[in-house]
């Protein structure tokens, strides 16, 4: 782990350590900054919060949001839940897997995109829904719109 990452982890801990129930806020700020929770962070957090490694690891691994390895440069999530299914998300997902050459949870060979399932984005009235990089929400995504998302991801860092 490089020094910058270590500093990020330390400052995430310092910022939330004294709040009640600090573990999730700490993990969020680490992942927001680094894109995942490095294994090296686990004992450091444990020591700061007086928790065992196993306890911290248990929390990190319980929550689907937290990653234990770096994702691709962009994360594209396709909603798999009922409303989106009713509007064609199963076919959209099949198209995405084929177009990217990966399965769900996989990362493209060029490292540009990690494809993930998600269970409802609250955008059910504009199904099928897709989320890009955790904050860029799209609705009524058809194959062409999906391909445009992929092109945009590939052309940016």
């Amino acid at each position: 782990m490089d020094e910058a990452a270590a500093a990020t982890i330390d400052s995430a801990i310092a910022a939330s350590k004294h709040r009640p129930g600090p573990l999730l806020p700490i993990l969020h700020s680490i992942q927001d900054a680094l894109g995942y929770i490095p294994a090296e962070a686990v004992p450091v957090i444990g020591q700061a919060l007086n928790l065992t490694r196993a306890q911290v690891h248990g929390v990190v691994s319980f929550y689907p949001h937290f990653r234990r390895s770096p994702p691709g440069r962009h994360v594209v999530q396709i909603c798999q839940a009922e409303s989106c299914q009713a509007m064609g998300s199963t076919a959209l997902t099949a198209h995405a897997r084929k177009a990217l050459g990966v399965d769900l949870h996989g990362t493209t060979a060029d490292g540009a995109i990690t494809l993930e399932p998600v269970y409802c984005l609250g955008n059910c009235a504009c199904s099928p829904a897709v989320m890009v990089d955790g904050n860029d929400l799209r609705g009524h995504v058809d194959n062409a719109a999906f391909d445009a998302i992929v092109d945009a991801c590939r052309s940016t860092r």
Partner: protein
Amino acid sequence: MTTTIYIPRDASAISRGADQVAHAIADEAARRNADVKIVRNGSYGMFWLEPLVEVVCAAGRIAYGPVTPKDVKGLFDAGFLTGATHRLHQGIAARIPYLEKQERLTFERVGVIDPLSIDDYRAHGGGRGLARALEIGPAATTEEVVKSGLRGRGGAAFPTGIKWRTAAATVAPQKFIVCNADEGDSGTFSDRMLMEGDPLTLIEGMAIAGVAVGATQGYIYVRSEYPHAEATLNAAIEVARAAGYVGTHLLGTNAVFELEVRRGAGAYICGEETSLLESLEGKRGVVRAKPPLPAIAGLFGKPTIINNVISLASVPIILDRGAQYYSDYGMGQSKGTLAFQLAGNVKHPGLVEKAFGLTLREILYDFGGGSASGRPIRAVQVGGPLGAYIPASQFDLPLDYEAFIAKGAMVGHGGIVVFDDTVDMAQMARYALEFCAVESCGKCTPCRIGSVRGVEIMDGILAGKSDRDERVTLLRSLCDTMLNGSLCALGGMTPYPVLSALEHFPQDFEKPQTQAA
């Protein structure tokens, strides 16, 4: 003269290009030297029209939608700044029948105001509920909520006032108000719309709850899939603090209420209240056995009111206009209004706030306009992923908690997902089990293992294995075990969508038997 233009900041509107439309309108106005003020409001919830742009003219707020950046030049050319007609002209927004036919109480300000403007909030009645609660005191505030008949909108429909009484009666040095903004149910988005469109109402409702039970700290647990709502809430808390709805001197009194937003981490089970509390404490979101009730020993072991966003956001109007006003809406034991959410394969998806008692058919056809595909509606799922599938023959069922329970279904959080006649209900049954397997917290065997077995059974049925009848029998018995042997409703209610699919659409489970068992 400055012309005010409303363009929603609601996440769904943004997902359809509202930000790009706002930029295009600002650019075009600058190019033409037009004096405009753009306000980013919430959404009215007519999503087939989003982005819905409103221009304030002499005649009122004239709506245009759905607007794309490409339409902007033409709108200016046509004279939309003075409400001129145009292909996208929808007339006065409040007069669009979809909206006009609703009974908006909890959502009264959503879409109407700038969600972060305290002046707008007050001008539309905001803040009066908290003022009244501080005036009448804790006991009378709780009794007002009891009398209103408000039941929890998060799913279980437990009477909100009764929960508050329990927490109020428990003596403790510290109590908490927790808002459940996990909104994990697929097909639902009312919590999100409220948080993005009128967050001050939720904050006011939580402050009232604090006053009622003697809690000075609140948390809003928002799911990580809702970055827009989270940002709006954080901004709104600062606005509320400056206005005295949060902080150490509520509306100038000595009452204290602090409030913080916490982000979830993608686990559906953390919408279950005890799992949510574990998560807030920084633990794995494993469900706690009850008792003790959270109202007696909840967050960090302290008495805790945990309520859904819509439950809490309905409290200010109850305090402001009185319990009677609220309970005059609705039927039977289902008092007030519910913000139904219409989604899936439907022509006019969106938010419909109506008094309990209207029928599914009215929602699906009078509001929804039938399916989006134009094909017959075959089934709807009401109440999220644990809700039953309802066939067309039961569309005259009134939307009422007890009427649904009597049919083995549930209203829940009010999500209604529509499927046309191309749906394969055996696939939907498989999906319900798969979802349970993915999201199980792992505490009890029927849920953790049963759901995985259920997927395997369904895979065989879908593949056309020759032992179908045995598999269906096994599936029923598995559902029975899950129904009776699960600690919480994830394992305990996953059988609802499975068994309702099997009961109403048995033909979908009869695949050609082409494979050996």
